[in-house]
Each structure stands twice: as C-alpha cells, then as structure tokens.
C-alpha cells in the first residue's frame, strides 16, 4: 500500500473512531442528534456517488429514500418483522427502485434527467397517498417502540449503534468504490462522457451502477430513519427530501467522501440554530448556500482539497 493510501485509510478510520467516541460521550440529546445526522449522512453519501462522482443530478432521490422508509416500515407493521432484517429490506427496496428508474431515466441526460427523476419521485409520492389505507398516507404510520431495535440495549444505545454501523458501512463502501476501477470510470463519465465512451466504456452501465448504489444507500438511510425515530410517512417522498441530500453534498463538498457527513451536520445545526432566531430558516439556508457558491463553490472539503490538501479523496 502506498503512503498516500495509508494516509487516506487512517484518516477515514480516525473519523469513524471519533464519531464512535462522540456517540458514547455526548449527552443523550446531542447523541440522538448525531444519530440523526449519521443516518441522513448515509443518504447524502449515496447521493454523492451519483451526483458528486458521476455527475448525475437527480431530483428524484426522495423516491429511493421513501422506498427504504416503506420497504422497512410495511413488513414491520404488517408482518411483525424485526428491525434489523427490515433495514436490509429497505436497502434493497431503494436499490430496486433505483434500478427501475435508472433503466428508464438514464435514456435522458442533463436537464431532462432531472425532470424525469423528479416526475418519478412525484409519482411515488402520489402512489403512497393513493394507497393510504396501507401506507398511512399523509398521516403516516407509527413504528414499534424503539426498545425493540436491539433486544437488551436501551433505545439510545441501539440507535447509536445502528446509525454508526450504517454510516461506517456507507463511508467505507463509498471509499472502496471511488478508489476502484469503477470509481475512476464514474469520475471519467462526469468529466467527459464522450471521451470515456471512445475509450470503450459504456456510459449507460456505469451510470446505472452508480445510481443503483446510490439507491441502496438512500434505501438504507430511509429504513434506518423510519425505524430509529419511530415514524414512516408520505412526507418523506416529497421534493424536499430530494433537495436535502443535494444541499448536504454541495455544502460539504461534492465528490469528496467525507463531505456529505460534514454538509449534513452543518446543515442540521444551521437549521436548528436559525429556528430559534428567525422564522425565515430557509432564508438562512439559502444565504449560506449563496455565500458558499460565491466563496467556496466546491463545498467545504472540496475547497480544502483545492487549497492544498490534495490527498482528500
């Protein structure tokens, strides 16, 4: 292993270790917030694979997140499935739906791709409302008591363990993928699709792989979020949940492995802090993004990488 590789692995493992320590030592309130952030960061990490590395600007990721929410929530509600296998099912539901959407939507590119994915997500949202008797529709479903998450563990501990595990897997898989052959081709597609095609790579399969991976991450995050925080509802399929991961990624740094985590945490505390000061929380978020685009268009980590820390993956 080269020195640079070692450095990258050590950095990522150190971040994970620090998160583990934080979860253990933070007061319950902040530890729960961190569990939320980690779960949402899984979503953002997945989005980053499609958008940050492959250049697929999707406006339909809420669909994959909601597929995860309901892929886990429905079997738990109606068949009494235990939470951990339910998360696996949610993950598969997200990936499955991403495959279907990808097969159709990837026939388009650019603005058309954005619109087609947006339409699919909207159709998904309306489907959840249409089958309201089963899905709970706009009101949603209450998930079982969090004491059932991991038998023997307190809800707070179980939440921390599951959120940490999901994020650790997401981060490491993302790191392995982007450092693999596939990851390099993904970046090539983002930079110059025609040239990559000329070199013999099939853009469709590469982009589909990225989208499916991204969907698996979104599904896992959705399933985790529903079960850890006790609620599944159609609101998770609204456009807001397609925009959120994009904002997280833009803020943290698109095309950086740790950017999504950083962006999610920054955005979470920005909204949380702004809510106490003003009703215009979205304005605060908007201003933050405008400033970011003016002064650090590549996000926090992207800018750091540009200004010296070139090893950041």
């Amino acid at each position: 292993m080269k020195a640079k590789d070692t450095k990258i692995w050590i950095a990522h493992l150190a971040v994970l270790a620090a998160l583990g320590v934080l979860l253990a030592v933070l007061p319950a309130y902040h530890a729960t917030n961190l569990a939320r952030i980690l779960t949402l960061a899984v979503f953002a990490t997945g989005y980053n694979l499609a958008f940050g590395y492959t250049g697929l600007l999707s406006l339909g990721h809420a669909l994959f997140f909601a597929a995860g929410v309901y892929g886990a929530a429905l079997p738990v509600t109606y068949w009494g499935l235990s939470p951990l296998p339910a998360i696996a099912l949610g993950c598969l539901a997200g990936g499955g739906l991403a495959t279907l959407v990808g097969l159709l939507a990837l026939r388009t590119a650019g603005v058309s791709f954005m619109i087609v994915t947006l339409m699919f997500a909207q159709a998904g949202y309306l489907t959840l409302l249409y089958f309201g008797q089963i899905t709970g529709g706009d009101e949603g479903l209450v998930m079982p008591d969090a004491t059932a998450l991991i038998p023997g563990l307190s809800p707070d501990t179980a939440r921390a363990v599951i959120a940490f595990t999901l994020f650790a897997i997401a981060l490491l898989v993302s790191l392995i993928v982007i450092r693999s052959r596939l990851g390099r081709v993904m970046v090539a597609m983002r930079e110059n699709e025609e040239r990559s095609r000329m070199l013999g790579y099939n853009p469709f399969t590469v982009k589909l792989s990225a989208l499916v991976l991204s969907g698996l991450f979104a599904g896992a995050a959705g399933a985790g979020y529903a079960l850890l925080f006790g609620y599944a509802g159609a609101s998770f399929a609204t456009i807001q949940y397609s925009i959120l991961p994009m904002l997280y990624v833009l803020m943290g740094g698109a095309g950086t492995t740790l950017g999504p985590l950083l962006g999610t945490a920054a955005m979470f505390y920005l909204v949380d802090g702004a809510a106490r000061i003003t009703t215009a929380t979205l304005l605060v978020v908007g201003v933050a993004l405008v400033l970011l685009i003016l002064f650090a268009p590549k996000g926090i980590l992207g800018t750091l990488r540009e200004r010296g820390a070139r090893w950041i993956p």
Partner: protein
Amino acid sequence: MKKDLLVPSRRSVLKGMGAGIVASAFPGYTWAQSSAPIKLGFQLHRTGIGAAYGRWYERTAQAALKGVNDAGGIGGRPVEILFEDDATDPKRGAEVVEKLANDGCDLIFGPLFSHVVIGSAPRAGELKIPYLVCSEGYHVASGMLNRWTLQPGITDVRSQVSSMAPWVAANLGKKVTMVYPDYAFGYDHRDFFTEAIKAQGGEVIAQIAIPPTETTFTRYLPQIPAETEVLYHVMVGPAVLTFVKELGDFYGSGARPQIFGFIDSLEAVDTASPGLEFLEGTYFWEAMNRVKQDGQSDHEAAYRAAVGVDDNGASVTDAADVSTYSHMFSVWETLHTIKAGMEAAGYQSTADRQKFVEALEAMTTMPEGPGNPQGDKLFNGKTHQVFGHQNISQVTGGKLMRVHRTSIEDGQYADAVDYTTMSF
C-alpha cells in the same frame, strides 16, 4: 448604649426564633416549593402549510399565558412558554420535541397537523414527556399513540363528524354525496360520516375523492348524482375557492342540493370573499362560532377580547386577518387544563410528569368557564380524548350564523383503546 453588631439584641433573637418555628412548621412548603417558572414547550406550526393556523395558535397561547400568569400562575409559580417552529413537518416535529425536552420543558403542547403529531408522539413517549396535542385528529382516541399523548382541548374529527349526522338527516336530507380530499383527512370524514348517517336512516349515495394535486374540479362535478339531497364537502387549502366557484357555475341559478361543509376549508378565510357568494345559504360545521352570536357567554366574550378577535372573527387590528376560530380555542383550553392537571397532581418538577398524566386521566367533566370558553366538555381518561359541543352555522348575508348546537352525546362512540392499561 452603643449597638454591638456582633452581639444580637434580645428582640432580634426572639424574631429569629419565631421565624425558625414558623419555618419548621411548614417544612414541605418552605423548602420543597420551587418558585422557578414552569416551562412549557410549544410545538408551533410557524412556517410550512400550517402557518395560518400557527400564527393564531401562537397568539392564543400568548393570551392564555397572560391570563394564567395574571391569575397567579400554576401552583403559585409563574409560567413561561418556549415556542419552537416545526415547519409543519413530521421529521422536524420529532426534533423539536427532543429540543424542547432538552431545554428542560415540563411538557410540550400545541401541534395541530396530524402528520406532525404522529411523527412526534413516539419520541415524546420515549422521552416520557407529556405531549398535549390540539389536533382534532382521531389518532389519539384510535389507540395509535401512547400513554404520554393526550388531547384535552379539542374534540376529535370522528366525534365532530358523527355529531353532524342527526341534524343533517333531520333537516337537510338523507341522500348524501360526499366530496373529500383523497388522503387521510378526507378518509376520516368519508368513513365516520358514512357510518353515522346510516345510523340516522340516511345513506351516502356517492363518494367523490379528489386527488390532492387537482386544481380544477369541473370533471368531478357531473359525478354528483341527480338525486343527491345533501352535498357534503371538506376541501382544504386554496383549492376550496376554485371548488366553490366551479360548484356555483355547475348549478347556476337552478335547483341545487343542500350544501354542508366543514369550516376547515375556510379557516382563516373570509366567507364574504369575492368568489364565495355561492356559499350563501349553505351550512358549515364550526367548533366555535367565529361570528359573535346572540347570547354569547361572558366567558367567550372575555376569550374573544383576550385573543384579539372582533365580532366578525377577524383580528381586531386587521379585518383581513381572519382567525382560525374553530381550532385555536383548543390551545387556550389545553393551557387551562394543564394548570388544573398540574395543580391536582401537586406538580413540582419534571419528576412529577407521570403524576400529571395520571391527574389528567382522572379528569371527567370540564365545566364551561373562563378556561373552557367553547363550552363544557367530557374527558375520557381511557382514550385520552375530550368531547364537546359542536355547532352548525348557515352562511347568511356572508356571515356564519348558528342554527344548531349539538349535545356532547351526539358525538360519543365506543372506546377503541384504554391507555391507562399501558405502561408509562
């Protein structure tokens, strides 16, 4: 004699001893009674789709808070409310519950929208913090939530809808066509009204569900059967204005069925707005009459003045700012119930939260009074749900005038849950 500061006089020694004896006679009162303010968290729809309601919920909460504090607070302690915006979003709602609990609030109250309540209640239950909702959703009494979630300030939609059926069947007609939004709120109306009108010997002859994305309704109106005697509508949001106008165009000046709707469609909307002329002569459910009625009670008059609503149901400072009068009273009544519950439980600190919930569960009748200006109520401790009187109003000269007030019994139904058997 020069007074020596270090040698106390006989008088001061006697005074000190006296104070000591008095203090020791009331040990609990002197030492355990905290004078720190009671801190209530308010989960507020300040932004998002619930903002029109949120604005009035906040004003009502402030007015009720002032009244409670002017009257000596709760158990002699001052009360403060910490408002936190939930953006009318269930995800943010759960975060807000957590934040308010972390800020040391004794309890949380105030949310209206069902999805926010359902998204937040599990977290409140886990944190073991009383969560008092002002939502009118059937989610509390249906048994969906938990022991820490209660609705003591407003009758739920199942009861509201059921209590309308006797009067509708007796006065408007027995063949009903329902037009409702195609999601959960609409289904509550569809299911419970269909059942209730059947019990009155009537029937729902057509159910027309309108998808939430619809902006025009002309293609649905021909589906209303010609033999319809009563058209029951519960459209929500800005679409209601288009709906009413198109309904007017559809029937023209010819014969039309009787029309009955839920004021939820027109909360915060002036019934005399241009385009709503067709509503003249039609009927609405109102929990509390926004227009001042003859014989308004003194309690209601005091409430109306305190929350700053004029005789037409709008803000006293801006006639265009129409209140959400049929819902916001629940905030006022909930705060007064909190006071009654905390005082009954001898509430001292967050360690007494369970005692507070038990005190609420033990409540039954709530007489009409300054704390219950909407009317007397019956609280069901098992289902955690309150039941009150409802009103039916007719639009007369652009104003909603009461034609009927239901009894509490009209809205009663069999218990679906007994929360008191669940663990805390």
